[in-house]
């Protein structure tokens, strides 16, 4: 009687599988190395280079970059014309984020709590559809909508409500000849373009709030408003924060929309583009680019302190 092998003959693939089984870390290391290399070298490396550049300065006299450590470039950031850009960009990003949050919440709430079946599909389609078309196409379309002789202007003229637009455009600081050349136009387009990035995380967060949580609150005597304030909002906060990180940082970095819509006043992204592209002032461009990173770090720290990540 011959003894036949209980275990089948093993090829290279089987031996590899066995190796991974005995040493799970080997597989993990194999899987993680390429992305970590990418992240570490390419991304963090370029970030470090950027940071380094921002500590160089440009020679006022010759325009040549001096590769010596200095904080001069950062003090230059605080020059009124540059500081204006920072304030303008951060204000816009904050306003856009706030408006997106207010607009997105009811939509996300409806989608998360009430929409079922076809309605849900319609919701996803409605939110995602704008994301599928080209960003530039959307922005140019808005330019036409907001133009002096555009759709909104025409509709206002037809309904004798042009005075509304005119009064908006005569608000000090926003004066302009049309919505499309006013900061208000920039704001509207920003809100439109980034809104899906607020709705989706918000909807995901609201969807994770179990219905029984709302029932429990009502059961314990809370009115709808109280339930919203003390249960829904805190539980949806991670989603709101996630969405606001998107809208805030995307607005901070964008340089296309304010080029096409608005009064041509610079935003951080436009300044970086011009400074490094046409002026060769790499240090100042780098210092400008560092600002959004710092702002986001502060923002995340504040969000953390507010407990936005407690429920994660």
């Amino acid at each position, binding site marked *: 009687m011959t003894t036949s092998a209980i275990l089948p003959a093993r090829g290279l693939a089987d031996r590899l599988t066995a190796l991974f089984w005995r040493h799970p870390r080997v597989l993990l290391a194999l899987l993680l190395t390429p992305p970590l290399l990418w992240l570490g070298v390419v991304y963090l490396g*370029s970030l470090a*280079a950027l940071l380094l*550049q921002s500590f160089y300065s*440009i020679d006022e*006299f*010759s*325009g*040549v*970059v001096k590769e010596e450590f200095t904080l001069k470039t950062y003090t230059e950031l605080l020059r*009124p*014309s*540059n500081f*204006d*850009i920072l304030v*303008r960009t951060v204000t816009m990003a904050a306003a856009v984020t706030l408006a997106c949050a207010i607009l997105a919440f009811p939509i996300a709430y409806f989608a998360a709590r009430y929409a079922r079946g076809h309605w849900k599909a319609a919701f996803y389609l409605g939110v995602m559809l704008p994301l599928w078309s080209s960003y530039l196409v959307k922005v140019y379309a808005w*330019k*036409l909508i907001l*133009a*002096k*002789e*555009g759709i909104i202007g025409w509709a206002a003229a037809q309904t004798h409500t042009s005075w509304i637009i005119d009064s908006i455009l005569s608000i000090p600081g926003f004066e*302009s*000849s*049309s919505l*499309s*050349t*006013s900061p208000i136009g920039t704001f509207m387009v920003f809100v439109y373009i980034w809104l899906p990035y607020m709705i989706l995380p918000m909807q995901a967060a609201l969807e994770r709030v179990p219905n029984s949580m709302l029932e429990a609150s009502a059961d314990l005597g809370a009115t709808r408003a109280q339930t919203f304030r003390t249960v829904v909002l805190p539980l949806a906060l991670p989603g709101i924060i996630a969405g606001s990180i998107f809208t805030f940082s995307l607005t901070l970095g964008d340089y296309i929309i304010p*080029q*096409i819509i*608005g*009064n*041509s*006043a*610079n935003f951080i992204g436009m*300044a970086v583009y*011009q*400074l*490094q*592209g*046409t*002026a*060769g*002032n*790499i240090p*100042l461009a780098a210092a400008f680019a560092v600002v959004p990173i710092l702002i986001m770090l502060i923002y995340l720290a504040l969000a953390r302190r507010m407990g936005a990540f407690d429920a994660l």
Partner: protein
Amino acid sequence: MTTMKLMAASALALLTGLSPVLAQVTEIGAPEGQVNIVAWAGYIERGETMKEFDWVTKFEAASGCKVNVKTANTSDEMVALMNEGGFDLVTASGDASLRLIAGDRVQPINIDLVPSWSTVDERLKDAPWHTVDGVHYGVPYMWGPNVLMYNTEVFPEPPTSWSVVFEEQNLPDGKSNKGRVQAYDGPIHVADAAQYLMFHKPELGITSPYELNEDQYKAALDLLRAQRDLTSRYWHDAFIQMDDFKNEGVVASGSWPFQVGLLKSEGLPIASVIPQEGATGWADTTMMHVDAANPNCSYLWMEHSLASNLQSDLSVWFGANPAVLAACTDGRGMQTAEGCTANGLDDFEKIRFWTTPVSNCAQGEGACVPYYRWVSDYIGVIGGR
């Protein structure tokens, strides 16, 4: 990063003096089979945008050199691409060409190997943006003015002065120009303001709009600040500007013949003029990389680029002026003498071509405000400072 470093290096080279003349090609050998060109959009057409504008396919068939085009959007991008290498030719504007020469990125051209050199417009042959110490670093390709584009319904007579875009006033239709004029969204526009002051405030002593001392520069910025109040939006994209003339009620702005031609062809009441103060403009040169891998095809292309039929079609296509005068008149292409006049062919003397402002200028070492300050200050002006 590499780009940044190289750009810094080239800026450095520009300031430390120009390089010695390099050895020239002495004869054209067998074609290598291809030529790689960095060009502005619309400069090298092979009939793909519009069928009738094609000056590449026949060249490829005749020379055996396949033409590969890399489009660049700014002068700085062109400089960066040439610094990276791998290209044979570039269609550089005046604010890039000297940088390329100073940075040893381009080589001298042996004009004896370009038979059509003799047909080049005399005004361009020794132009300072491609000729250094009598050595030619390229062959002229095309030039054009930055014209004053206006709406003929508002201006029955062409405006005679750039003041319509610089100073608040009532236009011929009785309404203020506030919110109805535009200006170029690039620091080089400081030069337009300087040129306006050159005419209206001779006491400032401006001799070149690209060489401004602190006082002259400050006066130009003040003029631009006044312009900020008149301008709802600045333009940098030709198509956005055209849209603004159509939909935003803009009636006057500095512009390029390109936009004027397109708007006219759509039947809009648009015309252009070079006012009494003159205009700034651009002049482009085909230059050859110092390490060009395909020198023979490059020379063949440079010769081809001066063919009067190509120049004729190119000037129609882009709404600019050919480097070869015969292109306007010999009927080998679509251009006509009237067309050339409309594009500003006769205004060459009125035009001050773009060059990069540097601190060492005719007024002395370090006397002029360098370009990087133009950039940051113009950002401030547009931001309302």
